């Protein structure tokens, strides 16, 4: 005989404002098998949990239904409370009265009725729950960090410094990411390279870090603590062991007119190249798309000049297979290019540039060696316009969110321009100035008050070229939307920060969720900002949403702390909600007939064959068997099974049918 306890939570007023909690508890108390029911203001609080624990001990409850928030929120809390009171944690279920009822319906009888129904179906389910024991699995104490920008670098260093092995992969020839492209950083105006490059070197020299640049993730299989990663190391066409990074090849390469990715197309590079002077590793790669040898079949000059004979034209991509226990995703973001904006000339005016291109112009190691010169004719612009929210916060462009970093870097750009071009005039067109952060607002005030940057609150409607000038049409909304026209020499668009191309495919490879803008989704917006919905995979930096350097670094350290926590144990406990094939006494052994349809359904290759032999060793029956280490508990096999021999613990046939029956049969 079941003794079920029902615990209805008010969640302050979140539930009780629309649901009559006392009535729910009272009605539930009358159901068969329910021996205790109560409502309380905060079930998740300490006294709330004590009510549950005491009831389990005093009333000898065999099952618990907590009717409160989403089980995605507090299921672990209540299962733990049950376990502490001596009840098997899997004998506890939650009815979702908050997210699925009180928050989405008006206050009326129908809402309370729905709450009662939700409780009833879980009472019926929990009657059929079975005590389960958590599964223990070993942990591989190596982390895979994907992306070598500042977030990936920070995460790798933090994990490595906590004593664990790290494999860091970066798709470009060097680590450093967008931060290495920046000239100065707000709000301190310290040079980006100066603070970043020592960290890059530290990564390369750290005994716990294996660095694969020019490498991408091919596939990831497995589960928390036990992933199997395949990494494609793209061919660099050089023997890295022999290469000394002398730079002879890059100086002699005749193919010198390739737009440099690092300089955002404002400078050029050779076909065999090191992306920038401080690159880590400081060894070149051959870009096979542009190299004359690969396109036309001859040249091989680099091979001739290389003093250590390190060039390998026939080198092939290498697949590295490795086992890792956790993954940190730090793949960063990208910015919209100027051709995304028809109103600003579709990118056909070379003097309209992106913020990231301006960084390269302002950088001492950039194509103009730090002088602000316009790309078209190299003249120093006397009037410059900065356009905030180019694409961001623009529903019509499909980017309704704020890109977060632009307000700050525009103030920095305008400030750098004023410092570098004395007497120059700069204008910033903005919607709002969002300068939330330590010393951020002060920084913007400095740009306006000390450096004399003209801030105009309004939008730009159009930019076109006339007599070598860029005519910027806008409005000043603080002066009654008075039209403003500026004849500028150069325009910088703070283009929206967006997810990387291919972010969606990567997310699908890793089975992590992503939002409608293809940024990776965190497990909980407030309380699990660095976790994903897939256990063992964590997020760091701007791949989750646009963010600045301090936030990316903080997030990376957060993710690293999670990984270190995971690696602090030798064994992991996993939810036992997995599939099992029934077993019966000989000579039946199981109702499974051995059709193995389940094998074709299982995405994890978790179903094996088990043979039963008679005394003479003859195989008399072959049936399916689930490997509990591999099974993830999706239950696809359950729906496939024609003899209903396979069932999934926690979602058994009996439980699901009784839920449906309890839902619609009025008691």
């Amino acid at each position, binding site marked *: *005989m*079941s003794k*079920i306890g029902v615990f209805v939570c008010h969640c302050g007023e979140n539930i009780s404002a629309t649901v009559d909690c006392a009535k729910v508890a009272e009605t539930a108390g009358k*159901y*068969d*098998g*329910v021996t205790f029911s109560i409502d309380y203001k905060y079930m998740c609080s300490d006294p709330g949990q004590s009510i549950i624990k005491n009831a389990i001990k005093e009333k000898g409850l065999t099952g618990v239904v907590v009717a409160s928030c*989403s*089980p*995605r929120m507090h299921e672990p809390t209540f299962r733990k409370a049950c376990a502490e009171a001596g009840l098997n944690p899997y004998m506890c279920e939650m009815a*979702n009265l*908050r*997210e*699925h*009822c009180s*928050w*989405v*319906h*008006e206050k009326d009888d*129908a*809402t309370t*009725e*729905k709450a009662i*129904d*939700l409780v009833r*179906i879980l009472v019926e389910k929990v*009657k059929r729950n079975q005590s389960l024991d958590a599964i223990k699995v070993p942990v591989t104490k190596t982390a895979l960090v994907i992306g070598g920008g500042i977030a990936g670098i920070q995460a790798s260093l933090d994990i490595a410094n906590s004593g664990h092995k790290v494999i860091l992969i970066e798709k470009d020839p060097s680590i450093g990411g967008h931060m290495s492209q920046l000239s100065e950083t707000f709000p301190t105006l310290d040079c980006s390279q100066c603070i970043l490059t020592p960290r890059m070197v530290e990564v390369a020299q750290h005994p716990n870090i294996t660095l694969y640049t020019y490498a991408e993730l091919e596939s990831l299989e497995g589960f928390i603590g036990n992933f199997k990663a395949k990494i494609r190391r793209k061919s660099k066409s050089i023997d890295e062991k022999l290469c000394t990074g002398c730079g002879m090849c890059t100086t002699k390469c005749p193919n010198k007119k390739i737009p440099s990715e690092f300089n955002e197309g404002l400078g050029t590079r050779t076909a065999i190249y090191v992306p920038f002077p401080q690159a880590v590793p400081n060894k070149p790669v051959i870009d096979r798309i542009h190299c004359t040898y690969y396109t036309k079949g001859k040249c091989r000059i680099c091979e001739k000049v290389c003093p250590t004979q390190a060039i390998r034209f026939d080198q092939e991509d290498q697949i590295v297979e490795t086992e890792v226990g956790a993954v940190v995703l730090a793949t960063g973001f990208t910015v919209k290019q100027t051709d995304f904006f028809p109103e600003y000339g579709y990118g056909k005016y070379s003097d309209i540039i992106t913020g990231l291109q301006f960084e390269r112009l302002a950088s001492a190691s950039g194509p103009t060696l730090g002088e602000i010169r316009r790309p078209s004719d190299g003249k120093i612009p006397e009037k410059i316009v900065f356009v905030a929210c180019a694409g961001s916060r623009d529903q019509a462009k499909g980017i309704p969110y704020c890109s977060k970093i632009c307000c700050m870097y525009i103030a920095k750009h305008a400030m750098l321009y004023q410092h570098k071009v004395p007497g120059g005039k700069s204008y910033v067109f903005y919607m709002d100035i969002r300068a939330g952060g330590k010393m951020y607002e002060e920084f913007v005030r400095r740009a306006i008050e000390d450096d004399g940057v003209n801030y105009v609150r309004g939008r730009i409607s159009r930019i076109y070229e006339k007599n070598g000038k860029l005519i910027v049409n806008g409005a000043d909304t603080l002066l009654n939307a008075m039209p403003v026209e500026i004849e500028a020499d150069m325009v910088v668009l703070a283009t929206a920060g967006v997810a990387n191309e291919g972010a969606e495919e990567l997310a*699908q490879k890793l*089975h992590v*969720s*992503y*939002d*409608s803008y293809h940024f990776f*989704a965190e497990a909980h917006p407030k309380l699990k900002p660095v976790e994903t*919905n*897939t256990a063992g995979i964590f997020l760091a930096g701007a791949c989750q949403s646009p963010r600045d350097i301090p936030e990316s670094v903080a997030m990376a350290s957060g993710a690293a702390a999670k990984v270190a926590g995971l690696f602090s144990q030798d064994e992991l406990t996993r939810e036992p*909600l997995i599939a099992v094939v029934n077993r019966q006494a000989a000579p039946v052994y199981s109702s499974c007939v051995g059709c193995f349809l389940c094998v074709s*359904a299982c*995405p*994890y290759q978790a179903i094996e064959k088990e043979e039963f032999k008679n005394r003479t060793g003859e195989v008399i029956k072959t049936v399916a068997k689930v490997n509990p280490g591999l099974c*993830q*508990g*999706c*239950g*696809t096999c*359950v*729906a*496939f099974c024609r003899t209903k021999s396979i069932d*999934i613990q*926690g*979602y058994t*046939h009996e439980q*699901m*049918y009784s*839920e*449906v*029956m309890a*839902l*619609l*049969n009025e008691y």
Partner: protein
Amino acid sequence: MVDFEPKIVAFVCNWCTYAGADLTGTSRIKYASNVRIVRFPCTGRIDYMLLLKAFAEGADGIIVSGCHPNDCHYTSGNFHARRRWIMFRSLCDFMGIDTRRIKFSWVSAAEGAKWADIVNTIVASIRELGPYEDYKKVVKKPVKEVSNG
């Protein structure tokens, strides 16, 4: 059908639609209270006999919803569910089960508003179709089970 309140059962996966419906709540988007959600680990787990069971027990409409194609937490469960749904739908048509009463959809964990829309749409359309008396007529009501509780 002025006073008719349809009973809608929703079979949803834990990772996308259940989370999406949670987001509807977190976003305080209101929708019709006729729906009762049953949580599954994955749409791939949903045995379509459960849909018939729900009709037999008195449901007027059913929603089956999981992750968008390619977004399945378990790689491919939603594809299996979709393929099975196509088969099941023809079977229903053959048997004379009103497939207008079953809504198969994808709602991701980020689509709180879409979930509310789907529920409201199906409630409105079932309200128009009326109670599913036809099915109830052919199904013998089982003798009320004595709870084994």
